[in-house]
């Protein structure tokens, strides 16, 4: 009798635990519950923006604090025919177009970018997966480009179109104007005092310190100014956001 009840109790417990996990998985798929889970992102964004200084600088480290290696992640080589040709030519004809809601659409070559006032920063790269690496990034502050092209009324987001693909989807990311005009937001062409390697986004990648790694778009070839995230991709503001439920707000 007691054996039966013990077995019953144990199987109830196992069923209960299994039921909880299955229940959570069902909630994970339920549209109404997903709305609650996705509302958490809005709350975190609102809370952090309200509580913290929008111009606060990410910590900058000393040269000896750097990681021995800067781990690459995501695309390590776009390997398209077009990219391979650019790579073979040392990115001499690579252009970064700046267009959309700007007064003067422009296109910047790498030498042109390098001729503008540069900023170097030794910062920590935090991947959404959990790891961190510290490296020195050198590049052109994005706000120099936006000051030259000028923003039209209604400009709210900056889109970074990239040369790499995940399956048939081109990588892209978006940031708002708070981050676009932040002094540490740079188009980096140097890593640890050397030209940016292919695996880290050559010839130019975005550094948007205060955000997780997936915001830092690599292989940037077009910068578009838009008024609404709905205008690009599937409307959630990035490849990972569109296809894999990642938060648009990557500050947490």
């Amino acid at each position, binding site marked *: 009798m007691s054996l039966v009840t013990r077995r019953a109790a144990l199987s109830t417990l196992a069923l209960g635990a299994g039921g909880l996990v*299955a229940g959570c998985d069902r909630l994970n798929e339920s549209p109404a519950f997903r709305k609650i889970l996705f509302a958490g992102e809005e709350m975190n964004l609102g809370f952090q923006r309200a509580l913290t200084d929008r111009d606060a600088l990410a910590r900058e480290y000393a040269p000896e604090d750097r990681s021995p290696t800067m781990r690459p992640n995501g695309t390590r080589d776009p390997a398209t025919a077009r990219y391979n040709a650019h790579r073979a030519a040392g990115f001499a004809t690579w252009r970064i177009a700046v267009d959309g809601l700007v007064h003067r659409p422009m296109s910047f070559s790498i030498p042109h970018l390098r001729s503008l006032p540069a900023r170097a920063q030794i910062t920590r790269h935090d991947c959404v997966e959990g790891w961190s690496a510290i490296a020195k990034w050198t590049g052109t502050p994005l706000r120099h480009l936006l000051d030259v092209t000028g923003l039209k009324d209604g400009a709210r987001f900056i889109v970074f179109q990239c040369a790499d693909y995940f399956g048939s989807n081109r990588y892209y990311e978006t940031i708002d104007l708070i981050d676009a005009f932040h002094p540490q937001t740079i188009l980096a062409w140097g890593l640890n005092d050397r030209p940016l390697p292919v695996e880290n986004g050559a010839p130019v990648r975005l550094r948007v310190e205060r955000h997780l790694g997936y915001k830092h778009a690599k292989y940037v070839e077009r910068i578009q100014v838009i008024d609404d995230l709905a205008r690009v991709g599937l409307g959630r503001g990035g490849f990972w956001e569109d296809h894999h439920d990642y938060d648009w707000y990557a500050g947490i």
Partner: protein
Amino acid sequence: MDETPAPAAKPRLVYRHRLTTRIWHWVNVLAVFVMLMSGLMIFNAHPRLYWGEYGANADYAWLQIGATRTEGYLRVGSLEIPTTGVLGRWSDGEGNIVNRAFPGWATIPSGYDLAMARRWHLTFAWLLAFGLLLYMLASLINRHFKRDLTIRRDEVRARHIWADIKAHARLRFHHPDRPNAYNTLQKLSYVAIIFVVLPVVILTGLTMSPNMDAAWPWLLDLFGGRQSARSIHFICAAALVVFIAVHVLLVVLAGPVNEMRSMITGWSKPPKEPTP
């Protein structure tokens, strides 16, 4: 209730837990359950822990869960523990072998989904953090902390703690003259959880946010860097698991029906045993 005299055989109930304590307890059951299981899924994305500011695959990890071609393992420092079937390498409900740190039955969601695990974690974090804050405020106002959780100097003398350990071994948890009072080990563990583990788990969680680090760089100094904060976050989570296991075990030993009633209604049956 006072009007009807209780039968002599039925011991009188005493009011043990205030409403705010009871609400916080059950909110935490939900919040901690979700935080732990979604946290394990997030850990699965990079099952390695480091000390300092940085740490990635090429750097030394003081803790790692992984798998060789055939075996799952947990490595702490230079100690490697085989964990095939539970950690690192296990089989899912359909019999597929999976090489991943924590098994599906322990994570939310049960399959690998970093983005959704983060959404669960960072949404339920509000319940955990603001639940703690409101409970702390309420417990200051209703004097729960002062009355029930203040540790007196004589309570932390070695002799007193030893006596309390012996009383626990005999399953005597409460002084019959003061059935409402927490015993010393109970007080110490609750104080450690409420004032150390939960605040540290919340602050180390914030330290993993790059935006919070920019705004509040003292977080990085307090915990010795982002990767140290991540390690401490994990250690605190492990401490919470140990606390919950002991807590549930003691509830079962002390009489689960009475303990559940007191945490749901507030009313508890005092112990019958004689003064130790």
